[in-house]
C-alpha cells in the first residue's frame, strides 16, 4: 500500500520505505551545493574532487547538461538518480559505497528530474579485446535535442555528466568499479543538499501481509551479470553465478540493485530504472488492494547453455510458485540469447500453473524467440528501427567506434534504437510500443 502524505512517523520508518521527493526546477554551478526552493546550486568542483578520490580514475570532467541543448552524450555507462538515506547517509548505496545495512526501509530523499550520467571511452585507455571475454561494442548515446531526444528518458532530465578517464595501467575491472563508486558518491553528494529541507512529495511503501484471497503476482526480472562491464550488482557485488532468489521490492527502489552492464544500451537496465522501477512502483501500489505482490525474483541473462537457461527458469518459476504467485510478469533483457531464457522462464511458470505476461523488445523480424505459452506479450519497441541522423553542436564522452571493426569514426550516422540509452528497456519503464501498420 502506498500513501503520499507529509507525515513519516518513526513507526513508518521502521516498517516502511519512505521516499521523499525533491523537485528541481533549476540547476546551476555555485560555490556551495545546496537546495533552495527548487533551485539546486551545485559546486561542480566539489563533485569533481569527490569523483577523483577513486585511485583508478585519472581525470573527471563534470558538466551540467540540460534538455534542449544541442549536446550528444556518448559512451554513456549508466544513469543514477541522486538519493541519500536521510537518517543514515553512510548506508546510501550500501555495498557499493555505503555501509552494509539492509536497504528498502527508512527515509530516502531523492532529487527528481536530475540524473548523474557517467561517460567513459574505455577503448581509449584499454584493450577490450584482451581484457574481456565478450568485448563491448555497441554505441550508447543520449541526445539532449533532435530526433533521438524522445527516445531516452535522460533527454528530459538535467544531467550531471561525469566524463571519466581511467588509468590504463589499472585492470578494466578496477576502473569500472572505481567509476561506479565515484558515480554513486556524486549521486549521494548531490542528494545531501536535501537533508533537513521540506520535501515536495512523500511516498510510503509498505510490504505487509495482506488479506487472503488476493492473487499473488511476482515480478521476475532478468539481469545481465557475466563479467566487469557486463554486470549487475546486488549490494555492491556481481550477481554472476547467483540463482534466482527473493528481493524485497523496496530494496529495488532503494539502490540495492545497481547497473554495471555497458553493451546493447537500448535494451538493458540503467540504475535509474531500478530506483524508479515502474513495475515495482505500480505493483506496490496495488499490493493489499488488488493483488499480493509476492516479490521481485531476478534471473540471469546470457546463460551459456540450454541446461543453464532451463535450470534458472525452473528455479525462478518454483520460487514464484512457492511464494504463492498465481501470475508472474517476466521482464526480459538484452537480445536474442537472453530472450531465449525469458521464454523458457515463461514456459516453466506456465507449466507450474503460474500465468505469465512477458515484456520484450523486438526486431525488424519481430520477436527473436517465442514459445506457444507466451500468449500475453508486451512489446517495448523494435530496437532495430533507425533514428534520423542528427548533428549536435557538442559531443561529450570521447570517440565513437565502428561496431564491426572497432575503428574510431566521426559519428555513428543514423543509429538504431539499440544505440539510444535505455530506449527499449524491457522492465517496461518506457512508453514505446510496436504496432501493426
Amino acid at each position, binding site marked *: 500500500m502506498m500513501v503520499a502524505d507529509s507525515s513519516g512517523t518513526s513507526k513508518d520508518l521502521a516498517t516502511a520505505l519512505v521516499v521523499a521527493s525533491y523537485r528541481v526546477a533549476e540547476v546551476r554551478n555555485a560555490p556551495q551545493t545546496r537546495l533552495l526552493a527548487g533551485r539546486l546550486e551545485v559546486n561542480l568542483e566539489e563533485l569533481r574532487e569527490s569523483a577523483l578520490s577513486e585511485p583508478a580514475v585519472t581525470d573527471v570532467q563534470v558538466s551540467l547538461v540540460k534538455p534542449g541543448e544541442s549536446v550528444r552524450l556518448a559512451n554513456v555507462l549508466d544513469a543514477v538518480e541522486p538519493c541519500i538515506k536521510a537518517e543514515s547517509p553512510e548506508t546510501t548505496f550500501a555495498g557499493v559505497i555505503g555501509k552494509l545495512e539492509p536497504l528498502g526501509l527508512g527515509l530516502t530523499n531523492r532529487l527528481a528530474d536530475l540524473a548523474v550520467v557517467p561517460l567513459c571511452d574505455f577503448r581509449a585507455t584499454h584493450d577490450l579485446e584482451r581484457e574481456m571475454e565478450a568485448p563491448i561494442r555497441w554505441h550508447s548515446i543520449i541526445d539532449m535535442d533532435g530526433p533521438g531526444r*524522445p527516445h531516452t528518458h535522460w533527454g528530459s532530465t538535467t544531467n550531471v555528466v561525469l566524463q571519466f578517464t581511467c588509468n590504463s595501467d589499472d585492470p578494466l575491472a578496477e576502473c569500472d568499479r572505481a567509476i561506479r563508486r565515484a558515480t554513486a558518491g556524486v549521486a549521494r553528494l548531490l542528494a545531501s543538499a536535501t537533508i533537513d529541507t521540506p520535501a515536495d512529495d512523500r511516498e510510503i511503501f509498505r510490504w505487509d501481509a495482506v488479506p487472503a484471497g488476493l*492473487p499473488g*503476482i511476482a515480478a521476475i526480472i532478468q539481469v545481465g551479470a557475466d563479467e566487469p562491464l557486463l554486470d549487475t550488482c546486488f549490494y555492491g557485488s556481481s550477481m554472476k553465478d547467483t540463482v534466482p532468489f527473493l528481493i524485497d521490492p523496496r530494496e529495488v527502489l532503494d539502490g540495492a540493485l545497481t547497473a554495471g552492464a555497458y553493451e546493447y544500451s537500448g535494451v538493458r537496465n540503467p540504475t535509474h530504472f531500478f530506483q524508479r*522501477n*515502474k*513495475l515495482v*512502483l*505500480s*505493483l506496490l501500489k*496495488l499490493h493489499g488492494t*488488488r*493483488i499480493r505482490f509476492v516479490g521481485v525474483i531476478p534471473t540471469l541473462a546470457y546463460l551459456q547453455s540450454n541446461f543453464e537457461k532451463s535450470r534458472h527458469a525452473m528455479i525462478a518459476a518454483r520460487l514464484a510458485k512457492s511464494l504463492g504467485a*498465481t*501470475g508472474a*510478469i517476466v*521482464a526480459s533483457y538484452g537480445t536474442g540469447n537472453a530472450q531465449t531464457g525469458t521464454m523458457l522462464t515463461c514456459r516453466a511458470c506456465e507449466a507450474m500453473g503460474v*500465468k505469465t*505476461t512477458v*515484456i*520484450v523488445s*523486438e526486431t525488424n*523480424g*519481430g*520477436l527473436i524467440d*517465442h514459445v506457444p505459452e*507466451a*500468449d*500475453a*506479450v*508486451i*512489446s*517495448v*519497441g*523494435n530496437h532495430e*528501427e533507425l533514428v534520423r541522423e542528427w548533428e549536435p553542436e557538442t559531443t561529450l564522452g570521447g570517440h565513437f567506434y565502428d561496431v564491426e571493426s572497432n575503428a574510431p569514426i566521426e559519428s555513428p550516422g543514423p543509429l538504431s*534504437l539499440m544505440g539510444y540509452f535505455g530506449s527499449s528497456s*524491457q*522492465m*517496461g*519503464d*518506457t*512508453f*514505446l*510500443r*510496436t*504496432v*501493426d*501498420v
Partner: protein
Amino acid sequence: MNAVHFLNQFFAGCGGEEAASQRPLRLDGAVGPGRQLDIAVSATVVCGDDYFGEMESEALGQLLQWIEDEKPDVLICGPAFAAGRYGYACGTLAREAVRRGIPAVCGMHEENPGVLAADGAAYIVPTGEGVAGMRKVLPRMSDLAHAVVEGRAESAPPGTYLPRGQRANVFVEKSGADRAIEMMLAKIAGDSYETEAKPPLEKVPVPQALASVANATIALVTEAGVVPKDNPDRLEQCRAKGWHSYDISGLDSLQSGSYESVHGGFDVHVANRDPNRLVPLDAVRALQREGRIGRVDGFLYSTTGNCTATARSLKFGREIAQRLKEIGVAAALVTGT
C-alpha cells in the same frame, strides 16, 4: 480520379457457382455493387472464382492488361467478405497491380486467405463475413480509395484498413510496465486481452519422406466436406465446428448416393455424382490391391474447410495428426479445394 473495379462472376451478374469457371471479362463502366462506389469507374473486370484459382497466370495476364489499358488512379477489388477463392483472386490481382504501379484497395474479412495473398501491397478494408454488410462497406472502400490516391491513407485512423504486414514504433500513453500489469490482471481473471506481439505464421518443417509406401499405413483426410448420405453428424457447410471419422474399411469406393459433399464453398454436384472425385478411394483401393500401398486406415477423416477460422483449422489438423500418430499412420493423403 478514375478506378477499375474487379468483381467475381457472382457480383458481376454472370451466375453463381455454376459460373465459377467464367473466363475473364471486361465491361464498360460500373457494374453491380460498383455502381454504389463513390468514385468514377471506367471499367469493370470480371473473373470466375474457379477460373482464377486454376488458371491464375492466364487470368492475371488478361485482367492486368485490361486494367493497365485504363490507366486508372486506383484498382478496387471486391468486397469479397469471407469468400476464400474470391478473396484470393482480389488479393493476388491487387498485389500484381501494385507491382505495376497501380495502387489497390480491397475489402474482405481479416481471415480471408486473400489478405495473405495481397502480401501487404493493398489497402484492405476489414469487413464482416456476410454480404449483408455490402451497403456499409462500399462507402468505406470509396473513401479509402480517395485517401490512397491523395496520399493520405497512412494518416487514417487505426482500423481503416488491415495491417499491411509492417510494424512500427509508436509512443503510447501507458508505460510498458503498466500495460504488462493490466494484461496480467486480465489474464488471471480470465478476461480477454490482446498480445502486443505474435510469432510469425508457424512454418512446419517438411516431414521426412517415407522409405516405401508399400510398407506403410496411410490415412485419407479431407476438407471437402465428404460425409455419409444424410450427414449423420451434421457437419457444417461452412465454419465447421469439428471433424468426423467415417468407417470406410469395408468400402472399395465412395458410391454416389452413399456419400456426398456438404461443402458450401464450391459447386458439389460434379463430386456428388462420384465422390471419389474428392476422395479417390477407388484408386487407392486399386493401388492397395496391387501392393503399392501397404495399409489404409479404416477411417476417412473429414471436415469442411469453408470459412473455417485459422485457429480452428490448426486445432483440427493437430487433433487429426495426433490420432493418426497414435494408430501408427505414417502419411496422410489430404484432399480439398
